[in-house]
């Protein structure tokens, strides 16, 4: 089985600062990724922007609050709102994270780490299956940056993610920056993570900047993609072939053209890896 999503090229995350460019039609890019929760609202400018973005380019919905790993029941209201948003905007795919973010009805608004145990695996697989059934489509699940790991984990994260994808028949959103950040924070080899994932399950790649806090790397989505993350992206492209790639930039959001230039860097690297220098200049 595989991840059944189209190849969209190189896109950017839809952010408030760029709304005027979207509305006047000058935010030209292969595709947009919108944070689902930002558009689970009754009306106003954000939804108008999303309508315009969707009219101009393919769109993907990326959530942060599905809380796939939480042991609370799925939030039915949230899933219903996500289903409605999906019906209205017909995104190319829907994604969320391999994490939990709420317990006992209390939302942390963060992507909290799971222990990589058989219990957690079975739980996440069931939840992904339930969400896919409710949405009537395959979803993509993204690896998160993490700052702690649990001693009772029985498998590495990449094995856990691959198992979730296989057992739940979902896709993988491979965040290359998150792999790099977590590898630095936990002391594993980022390359081993990337190459261990089943290539046919990877439907999307995320790129972003991070911040070195001295004792650890923090996934801030700030600044340019770092050189080692670009290197890891090369490896990911060699491993997977062409995969829709998106640049996230959430802190100190730059002008749209600079953000788009970052996406163009990804395009150039992909071309170089897949077709060599000739294709890059063609």
């Amino acid at each position, binding site marked *: 089985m595989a991840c059944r999503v189209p190849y969209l090229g190189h896109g950017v995350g839809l952010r408030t600062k760029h709304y005027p460019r979207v509305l006047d039609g000058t935010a030209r890019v292969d595709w947009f990724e919108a944070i689902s929760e930002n558009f689970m*609202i009754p009306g106003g400018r954000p939804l108008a922007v999303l309508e315009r973005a969707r009219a101009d380019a393919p769109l993907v919905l990326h959530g942060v609050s599905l*809380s796939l790993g939480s042991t609370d029941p799925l939030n039915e209201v949230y899933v219903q709102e996500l289903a409605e948003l999906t019906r209205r905007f017909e995104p190319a795919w829907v994604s969320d994270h391999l994490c939990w973010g*709420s*317990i006992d009805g*209390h939302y*942390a608004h963060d992507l909290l780490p799971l222990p990589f*145990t058989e219990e957690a695996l079975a739980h996440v697989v069931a939840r992904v299956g339930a969400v896919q059934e409710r949405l009537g489509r395959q979803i993509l699940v993204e690896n998160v940056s993490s*700052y702690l790991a*649990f001693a009772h984990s029985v498998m590495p994260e990449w094995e856990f993610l691959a198992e979730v994808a296989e057992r739940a028949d979902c896709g993988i959103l491979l965040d290359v920056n998150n792999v790099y950040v977590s590898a630095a924070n936990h002391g594993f080899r980022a390359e081993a993570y990337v190459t261990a994932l089943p290539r046919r399950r990877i439907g999307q790649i995320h790129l972003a900047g991070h911040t070195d806090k001295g004792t650890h790397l923090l996934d801030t989505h700030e600044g340019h993609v770092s050189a080692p993350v670009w290197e890891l992206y090369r490896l990911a492209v060699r491993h997977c072939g062409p995969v829709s790639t998106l640049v996230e930039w959430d802190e100190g959001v730059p002008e749209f053209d600079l953000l788009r230039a970052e996406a163009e860097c990804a395009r150039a690297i992909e071309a170089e890896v897949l077709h060599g220098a000739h294709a890059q200049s063609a």
Partner: protein
Amino acid sequence: MGPMPSLRELQMRFLRSIADAPGPAASDSFDARLLELVRGQGRLGAAKRLDIYAQMYWARLLDVLREDFSRVVVCLGTERFTEIALGYLAGNRSVRPSVRHTGACFAEFLAGDAEVRTWPFLSDLARLEWARVEVFDAPDAEPLRVAQLQAIPAADWPGLTFKLIPAVRLLHCGWPVHEIWARAGDGGLCEPMRPAETHLRVWRDGFTVYQASMDAIERLVLERIVAGESFGAACETFARGVTAEDAPGEAAKLLLRWIEDGILESPSAPR
């Protein structure tokens, strides 16, 4: 090390640890059993690793409040605002998947907190800022246009009923917070002001949020319209403030102002 906790128990211990106490005190309340389960390695021990999540938890929610209540921040200063906001967040946990609801009870908190009552206008200012947040993404509606009204014979106007668009909020404040809001927005300090009964309407026209103070007549007419009275009945209010011959003209002016502001939906059929 005892038996491994269930996934649920681990999650309960985790969120309790990072969300029970804000700021530097957070690490004091970390769950000892949880810390046993966290791998400490390299330059970061288990507590420091958990503390990264605790710091992010509070910082993220504080950011939301700072953005939604930016004028309250100006009035209080960042440091004092942070102290107060942390107190609010500690007692008002987020129970919705979206952070946009974080500040829903902040004005109420400011009204009830003994320390904050030394700034008596802050709760009203926060209510104004929250009303602006609410109308920003309230449901869309097609506003009534002048041409639509002109198409209705003037004789039928008194029988018309109007509905406000969903993106309108009416506020009754004890302070002229619209003036404080404007001054704070210009970067000016919030000087002590005299309390004054103030009625505001806050609305969205297109993508822009506006606010305006209302005099007694406008407020009364609008309240009667919101209550479902016909325009004619609501305009009986004018009898209190203007001469009988001026009343129709004043009523028409009010109606046109609301239409220009885009706060009315299309009228129902004349009764």
